[in-house]
Structures are given as structure tokens and as C-alpha cells.
């Protein structure tokens, strides 16, 4: 169940910064834990957006084990094999922000990870992918699962790196595609005039 209004409130507070802090600066401020990673792809759409191959996510409320576990959980929720961890880290960033705002959310996320670990015999992250998935699947409908799913379905797909990865142009289309490919599909026949209409004349 998506609580859009809840998501929106969260978004209004925390999701305006759509770029991951892909710089070393994030190491230098704050006091929380940090998740670090390296872009798997050295070329391609996301690499073009990143100032360096290394990325770091500073956590304000959650510890790094919780953060890493949540990230992996989100990879199971929305498994895109070649989508960088750096994009999934944006979901963790929003979860962390939400935990910082609301002690109940913090408790939900921390105890959710603890439960996952205990059920998996100590460390859910250390078991295999298929085994991990069974735990994810079994949690469907729980508040922990729904919080992660509801956050991930917004955060994961609402940032410039995801836009580049999936092929959406976002605000780059703001001026309009009239002269930028609105009808550039060439693998089907051209439209007959009666079904379509003329290009507008800018001089008219």
C-alpha cells in the first residue's frame, strides 16, 4: 500500500536534493556512519554524471550495518542487475532522513534489520542472494517491508542517475521535443496525414 501523502511529506523535507553526495566532502561533515562504494561501470550514463568513481553516503541516524542491509534489501525489492549501488543508496539516504525525523521510523528500520539478522542466523547480508530473497518475500505486508518498498519506489526512480539509466529525460524535456525527437521513431511507417497533423509554423 502506497501512502502517497506520507511520501510527499517526506519528499518535501528530504528529497529535494536528488544528487547523491558523490564527492569526498561528505566524509568531512556530520558525525554519523558512512556507506562507501565504487561505481561498477566506468563508462555509461551514470558514470558521466558522477564526479568520481567513489561515492559515499553519510548517515545521520542509522548505523552503517543497518544502511548496508537496507540497501541490499532494496536491491531485492527492485532488482535492476546493472543499476549502480549509488542509486540504491539514495533510497537509504531517504530512509535515514526519515529515521532522523521520526524515532518510530528509526526503531522500525533498526529492529527490522535486527530481526532479519537473527532470522538469518546472525548476519542476513552474509547469506546468498537466493536465501536473502526468501526473507524479503516472507516480510511482504509488514510495516518494515512497506516502509522500504514505499520509499524505494519513489526514491529509486526519481533522480537524475535513474533517469539516465532508464532513458528518461526529465526536466531536460522542459523546452519541448518538437524539434528534439518527439516523432523520431523510425522502426514503424510514417503516419498518414489524415491521422496526424502538420508541424506548427514558428513564423506564423
Amino acid at each position, binding site marked *: 500500500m502506497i501512502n502517497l501523502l506520507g511520501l510527499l511529506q517526506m519528499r518535501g523535507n528530504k528529497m529535494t536534493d536528488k544528487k547523491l553526495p558523490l564527492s569526498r566532502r561528505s566524509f568531512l561533515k556530520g558525525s554519523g556512519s558512512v556507506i562507501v562504494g565504487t561505481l561498477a561501470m566506468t563508462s555509461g550514463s551514470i558514470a558521466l554524471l558522477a564526479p568520481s568513481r567513489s561515492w559515499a553516503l553519510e548517515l545521520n541516524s542509522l548505523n552503517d550495518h543497518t544502511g548496508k542491509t537496507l540497501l541490499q534489501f532494496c536491491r531485492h525489492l527492485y532488482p535492476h542487475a546493472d543499476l549502480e549501488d549509488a542509486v540504491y543508496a539514495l533510497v537509504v539516504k531517504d530512509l535515514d532522513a526519515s529515521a532522523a525525523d521520526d524515532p518510530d521510523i528509526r526503531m522500525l528500520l533498526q529492529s527490522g534489520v535486527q530481526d532479519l539478522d537473527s532470522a538469518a542466523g546472525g548476519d542476513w547480508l552474509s547469506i546468498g542472494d537466493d536465501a536473502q530473497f526468501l526473507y524479503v518475500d516472507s516480510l511482504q505486508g509488514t510495516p518494515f517491508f512497506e516502509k522500504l518498498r514505499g520509499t524505494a519506489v519513489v526514491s529509486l526512480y526519481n533522480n537524475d542517475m535513474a533517469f539516465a539509466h532508464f532513458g528518461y529525460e526529465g526536466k531536460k524535456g522542459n523546452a519541448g521535443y518538437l524539434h528534439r525527437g*518527439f516523432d523520431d521513431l523510425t522502426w514503424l511507417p510514417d*503516419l498518414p496525414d489524415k491521422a496526424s497533423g502538420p508541424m506548427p509554423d514558428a513564423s506564423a
Partner: protein
Amino acid sequence: MARYDNKKTFAHDDDSVVVIVGSGAGGGTLANELAQKGIDVVLLEAGALHTSKDFLPDEWASFSQLAWLDKRTTSGDWRVAKDFPNLPTWICKTVGGTSVHWAGASLRFQDHEFKAKSTYGNLPGTNLLDWPITLDEMVPYYDKAEKKMGVTRTNDLPGLPGNNNFKVMYEGATKVGYKECHTGRMSINSVTRDDRSYCHQRGFCFQGCTYEAKWSTLFTEIPRALETGHAELRPESHVARIEHDAKGKVTGVVYFDKAGNEQRQKARAVAVAGNTIESPRLLLNSESSSFPDGLANGSGQVGRNYMSHMTASVYGIFEKPVHMYRGTTMAGIISDEAGHDPSRGFAGGYHFETISLGLPFTAAFLNPSGWGKDFASAMDQYANMAGMWIVGEDMPQADNRVTLHPTERDKHGLPIPNVSYSDHPNDKAMREHAFKQGEAIYNAAGATRVIRTPPYPSTHNMGTCRMSAKPEDGVCNKHGQSHEIPNLFISDGSQYTTSAAENPTLTIVTLAIRQSEYIADQMKRGAI
């Protein structure tokens, strides 16, 4: 902004004005039509003023800016109640109302759709009724509305050029044998006209048109009404109740202004155009000792017969890129299934219309609550996806209705609305037919996968204060005048007796133009 500045303001105790509640397609149009006739109007809008310069090319941010997000509750067996329990509709709270967000499809009703009960018969479980108006009576007003709105393929205006998403639709439609498929009759400029630009194919129709190519009361009716000096716009004015005198005539409205202060505006007549949830909510919240069940509710029909169209979407995934988000969202319509052909197993008909969502809203709406490999593998194909919306007639049912929540209150202390909706078997049969046909269209165009997407929170909302020939069957007469109170009018889609298969805005505008003539005439005669 000068364009939205009031040239004239009216005193709160000026009881010569017509108060219009809501500035969308119905209220905004009515305001301008009355003001052009020299009738003084106070236009109260719950939302704030956001002009075309303020619109955001960002789905979630725009949603926060424009959508009506005041809490509502839901019930009934529709999936929206499960997936979006506090968001039954996707409509706007902003000056211009949902005419800021609409996609522009402007199709006239068909003749038989005004005679739904006579045509479809007594379908069990429905509350069908014929409209008290016929298509013939509406034609001259449709003509005026189409001229006003600049509907493509009318009045020698060319169609919009087809975009990628339409190319896919057209290929499939032609291959399955459909004949009525083109880039639509759209209230979106295909050429520069009416002091507004042609469409630049941005693809952000739902987020507000920055070029003002798409007709909206925000760009046309409201500034023109203000220009006459006969209309005053008051944004951020949430009407709480309508007041009446001992003779049973309405005398004005009480509203909360931007600061949350209660204000009272006197009125000679009141026109309610707050869309299909707020309009009945306002009438119900206006109960009094004379009208214990709410204003104009002697029939008990206020809030009932809520319709949202039979909707759904089909997305097709192709081997090669489509980039459906590039270009006018809904400029692609197939009308072959729009007629009434009971041999298909249901009454009424439906249209296919292109639709595209950006990546963020595709994730949110493709399969709400969806997750896992199946969902992710569809998202992986976003660039190769084409989309179509299905919009068809849904059946009026007495228990599909807007009611006041027994306990929950909004920030003004007013009961919030609950929206209950369950599909009628006819709606389900039509949806299943449309899904199959939609899939056939994309398969014919070479889809490798087709996806059935359930209804979004409702954008088409109709019927909760319906027109009827007899007072016992509905809330208002053929002019939108309430049966019980002569100077109280319904001026939005709430008037709809039945939903028809067409996007509602054109007919809402048409009814508002027609109603303005009636109100002016009634005022001239001293009847109101």
C-alpha cells in the same frame, strides 16, 4: 502578476454578486461567461495562484504543487482504496482547478449517451437515468465551447502532429482493423491562436502547460473575466458552507481565507463548482434545520451516483525505443469501440487514448504495490514502452457515493469526505474487453510484452449532484439549477446524469456556457 490582478473588488456584504465556488473548467468558464455579460462575479478558489511560469517539469514536485492533497478516505472494492487509501482522485487545488492538469482530449458526447436509461435499459444495480437534455440541445453550445477552446480538427484547425507513442498506437490500431484513429480532438493549440502558443510537445501536460498551448481557465477564462471589471478572484478561499434565508433562498457563503479567518460573502446566487467530491461535500456540510440532509438534497441524491469512468491502461514493451514521454500526452485517440454495441457483452463504450508517464510516475502507477523481478524487468524497458489509457462509460450506482466522515475533520474543523466506489459488473466486463483489445493493438504493433495497469486515482469525477427531469431523481435541472433552491446552481461535472465515454471537460465547459445564458436570463426576469 497584473494579468491576475483584480480590476474590481466587491464588498463582502454586496448581495448583488454571483458567487462561484471553484475556478476550474466549470466555475472558471461560468465566471467569464457571466462577466462578459456584465454580471458581477466573485470567484472563490480553494487553491493558490500558480501561473504557467511556476509549473515544474518534475512529476512528484508538480504533484505537491498542484494536486488536491487534503485528506480523504475511501471505501468500496476498487483497487484505489487499497493502493491509495487517502488519494481517491488526482485533481488539482490551484487557480484554474483541474483544467491546469487535464490532458486536453475534447470529444462530444454521443446522442445515445444522453439517453442512457432508454438505451441501456434497466441494468440491475444501476441508478441509470436519461439526461434532461439532448445532444441536439447541446450542439450549439458544443460549437461555442470548441471555438473557445480551440479544439483541433474542428473549425478548420489542424490536428496535432503525431508523436512516437501515437505512431505505435496507430500501427497497432490499423493492424487490428480500427478505422477511427488520429491525434485526437484536443484543446491544445496546433497553431498559434487565441494569443497562445502552439504545442511544443513537452510531454508535461499533467504538470501544467508552460507554453499555455493547452486550454485552461487559468490562461483564458479567468484573466478575461478579470479584464472585464466584473469579476473578482479570491484564491486560497475555502468555502465551508452556503447560507440561506427563511424563504429557502441562498444568501451567501462562509469561507476560510488564506490566513484561516472565517469570512462571509453575500450573494444573489451561488454556483458550486468544486469538482465532484467537494461540491456534494459543501452541500452536505451546509445542512440546516430547514435542510437537515444538506442543501438541495430533498431527493437524497447529493453525493450519490459518483462516477469516475471505467478506466485502466495498457503498456506495451517493444524491441526498439519509443520514448513515450516525448510529446503531447494524450494526442492519440481510437474511437472504434466508443459506440453502444451490446453484442460485446456490456452497455456503453470506451476510447483508447495515448498516455505517457515519466519514469517516477511509471514506477508509482504501473502496478501500485508491485515489486520484485517482474516489476523491475518492466521498468528496465521504460525507454521501449508505449502507453494507452482506456476511458469508458461507468454505470451510476446509488451507493457509489461521497459522504461526510463521521469523525475526521479537516484543518477548518469540517468533516472530511469519504469516497466509496465499487465496479459494476458492466464496468468489469467493459474493462476486460478493453484490456484484450488494447493488448491486441500493441501485439499487432510488435510488442514483446503487454502490461495491464489498474485505474489511477480518478481524474474524471462525475455525477454526485446529478441533473434530472424530476426533482425526486436528482439534484438539479437541465440548467444545473438545484430543484429545491432557485438561486443555487451546480456548475461542474457533478451535474452529470451519466458519465458517457468521453473525457468530461468539453461537456463541463459546454454546460457552463449554456448555464450562463440561463442565469443571465433568470436574473433579467427577476426570477433569481
